[in-house]
């Protein structure tokens, strides 16, 4: 479903030698698979996600989703890809203050050329599924951190994407709530056969992933041995 081939992304640095944020990463992820990428800060996790989301162009290599080259998309096609084929869950819980959970979750659907009423109607079951049935009309600031993250997950899944990218989704949550959110995320995605690529530095995430990889200095260097398949090419 997702294939990364010798992906490279370097950034210029003040010191002269470029920062090798992603350095020859190759990875193949099957449809419906849940993959976790570990790594410390600065290991290139977020850059890798941005490359998969077509928010950055790689210096070399390619990103293929269902066999289609993503890294060469035009701005418009890249936006269309993110809107319909991709969900993105961020660490920052940028809900619109003052707006309800329902409105916040329906935000992406509004962009998908759905009328606002239809968008709200369509997002409601997902919010119920994520345990927010009685919180839908609550304003963003009235929600707990865990609830806010569930709203973000609902927004990401609202357009029924094939691929979900999650960038430290539990970074703002305590361990217990983090586990709850990850569990819900994994369960929901499995039900919907959504492929998940999760980057995190939280060891707990491994419990929910089918495969786990380590990312260090821009390279995939290791895999959790007890998590099934090894990477196709780990660096």
């Amino acid at each position, binding site marked *: 479903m997702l294939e990364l081939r010798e992906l490279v992304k370097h950034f210029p640095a003040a010191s002269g030698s470029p920062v090798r944020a992603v350095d020859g990463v190759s990875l193949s992820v099957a449809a419906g698979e849940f993959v976790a990428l570990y790594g410390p800060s600065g290991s290139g996790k977020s850059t890798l996600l941005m490359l998969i989301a077509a928010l950055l*162009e790689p210096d070399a290599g390619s990103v293929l989703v269902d066999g289609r080259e993503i890294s060469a998309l035009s701005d418009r096609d890249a936006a269309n890809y993110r809107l319909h084929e991709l969900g*993105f869950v961020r660490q920052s819980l940028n809900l619109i203050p003052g*707006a309800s959970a329902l409105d916040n979750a329906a935000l992406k659907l509004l962009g998908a050329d759905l009328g606002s009423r239809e968008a709200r109607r369509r997002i409601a079951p997902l919010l119920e599924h994520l345990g927010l049935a009685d919180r839908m009309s609550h304003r963003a600031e009235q929600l707990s951190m865990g609830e806010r993250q569930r709203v973000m997950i609902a927004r990401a899944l609202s357009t029924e994407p094939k691929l979900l990218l999650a960038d430290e989704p539990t970074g703002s949550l305590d361990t217990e709530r983090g586990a709850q959110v990850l569990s819900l995320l994994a369960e929901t995605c499995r039900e919907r056969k959504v492929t998940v690529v999760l980057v995190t530095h939280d060891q707990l995430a491994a419990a929910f992933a089918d495969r786990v990889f380590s990312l260090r200095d821009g390279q995939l260097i290791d895999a959790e041995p007890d998590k099934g398949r090894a990477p196709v090419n780990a660096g």
Partner: protein
Amino acid sequence: MRLSSIARLYRVRIRARLTQELFAVLGIAIGVSLLFSSQVANTSLNGSVERLTNGIVGRMSLQLDARDSHGFEERLLEEVQRLPGVQAAVPVLEQDANVVGPKGQESVDLVGTDPRLARLGGGIARHVSEVGLGSRARVFTLPTEIAERIGATSIRSITIQLGSGSKHALLVPGLLGRGGASLGDSPIALAPLRAVQTLAGLQGRLTSIYLRAAPNRSSLVRAELERIAGDRLNVRPANFATTLFRRAAGPVDQSTSLFSALSALVGFLFAFNALLLTVPQRRSLIEDLHLDGYTRRMIVEVLLLDAFVLGVIASALGLALGELLSQVLFSSDPGYLSFAFPVGEQRIVTAWSVLVAVGGGMLAATVGVLAPLRAEIVERPSRWHARSSPVWRGRTPWMLAAALVCLLATTLILVLSPRSAIVGVLTLTLALLLCLPAAIELVVGASGRLHRLQAGAASYLALIELRSRANRSRSLAIAATGAIAVFGTVSIESARSNLQRGLDASAHGIDSGADVWATLAGKSNSFATSSFIDSSAEALRRVPGVRAVQLYRGSFLDWLDRRVWVLAPPRGAEHPVAASQIVSGNPLQAAARLRAGGWAVISKAIASERGLRIGDAFTLPSPRPTTLRVAALSTNLGWSPGAIVLNADDYARGWSSTDPSAYLIQLTPSASATVVSRRIRATLGPRTALQVETRGARERMHFAQAAQGLSRLTQIRSLVLIAAILAMAAAMGAMIWQRRARLADMKVDGFSRVVLWRALLWETAALLGVGCALGAVFGLYGQLLLGRALAVVNGFPVIEATPLPVALGSFALITAVAVAIVAVPGYLAARVRPSISFPE
């Protein structure tokens, strides 16, 4: 993206930034209101004369016009009517008059005509009954509002002062309806031709013939008219009064437009400050939308709806505020222009005024919303995070270079083309804004060095905030608001006070020509431009305390598109023209030449236009063209189209009339002006149309008129100051309020409330101080530019005084008041609970 979806997105977000949006609405509304009210004031002045003229002349295309109020023989009417191509001709006798009712008196333009005007003229003329105009009775009609002002609301006999006498006539009110665009208070009276001829003692005379030429025969008719006119009469378009008025009102229009542009800029900065408060939210929204797959176009659509709603609400509020302002504050007082034109005080709101104001509001909203987010809109997302520093970061040298270019352009305008002063003010404003980032950097750098010498926690914290790149856009916008406000205030207030001093000096120079003045009554005769039949000079000479009575002559004369003020002091006048008003030539020699006769002092602007130099001969287009030589060049003596001074005998020759327009009465050394004035009034009798004023009273009247003429600038300046102070205080206060989380962190780190409060005040004072100080410095240059434009281009008398007090005063006032206001939210923010640092 569907409009309903964009609207929904707008609705769900608005609650989170309602306060900031309201600030933005208020800011844009203030700009729109100032723009709208000043536009209305300008269009009201020009529109009043235009509508009145068109309302009378209608579809008549040409006029044959006398050069003075004595007119020409009525028999010319028949000759004109017989000309090939003339479809119709209407006779008119126009006189300045004073109507006196039970509640007061008003100056009016008394138009005598016959029923043909009611048939052929415009909307106003057709309002008058043909039967009425055809009568020989002494009846006349006035606009309702004028009639009400003098206490004559129904048909009644009232007094008309015309020439030196008073006569009774029957008033029929209701000529022009009431209010709005009906020209309800235009100072005009319509009467049968024969009645005006009788009242004015000008039987068989006309001052104008309006005529309609057959299609495609205008050139032929005009040529024939010019043959008839010779060098004694004028042939002009029927609505030529509007051209003359536009020329006269030009400086007023320009100054108001300039100030309203600066006002609009301050209003925009107010809005921009408020909109900057919403930038973090909008930026985060854009990033989220982008990650969710919104295209750039969809994001722009979302932002444009923000701008559209903001612009529409702010424009609507601005129009309402502007309407209020134009009614309460900027009443379109015609001031000195009413001395030579029948201009009313009605407000005329044109579609153009609304369009300009709303267009300005929508533009401000669009720029305010989009400009701070241009990187997010234009650049690829991969670059967003790389751009954490402001856009001018690293560009300071380029901005300084651009500022230098702007300053150079301003200097070139100052030296070579003061006519383009408005462009100069704009380039100066641009230079000011371009210099501001560097000035802030400079002050922050200097503060850092000073801080090493004198350390203190509060100033250190203030310095950190000032250095913070994250705050820089907002800091710059706040400083820019203060800078523009002080710049506008200093440049225009200094120019205004210099002009006021010049006008006062000019009035003093003229009024000091006599101890007591006797002129025809009426506001429109403030310049002593209406003549009367001399029947009292001998009697006045016998009044105890009177040493001498001299005859002063004067009037307005149309010279091409200028309605020029002609002053003709008596040949023996000690100072026929004040030395302070001579801008080129020797004042003593000029006075001697004037006394000798055959010479005239003319305004420099007229001389430049006609290519005249001192000593050159020219022909004055007086009723009887007179050749004079230029004795010296003067200011315009406070009358924007310009002035000409010659001696009273030359005037009598050129106008073929010995009628004076004032008695200049000199008193014996021991006589009291007040007492002698009383005796003079008694001598003139109760039925006289002359009013008697001491030199002091006349000067005070002229000073007040000059101040009134410039009052709109003072009013707008005050509003700009208030708007700027509010804008800066609101923006600064909001910025501080949004910083509470960081302040809470600092409290956790051990900083006390007092230290935090002081730090906030330091920061505010430094920021506003830089902006206002730079504004004051540029304001000094601005006043130089405007002063030169007033003096050189329009020839106004300008007496320059040091602008430093105005500059320092404006700087201190705006900075101090804004800091004082910010002290309150600063204090409240400093009281933030440290616990908010721990959200869960």
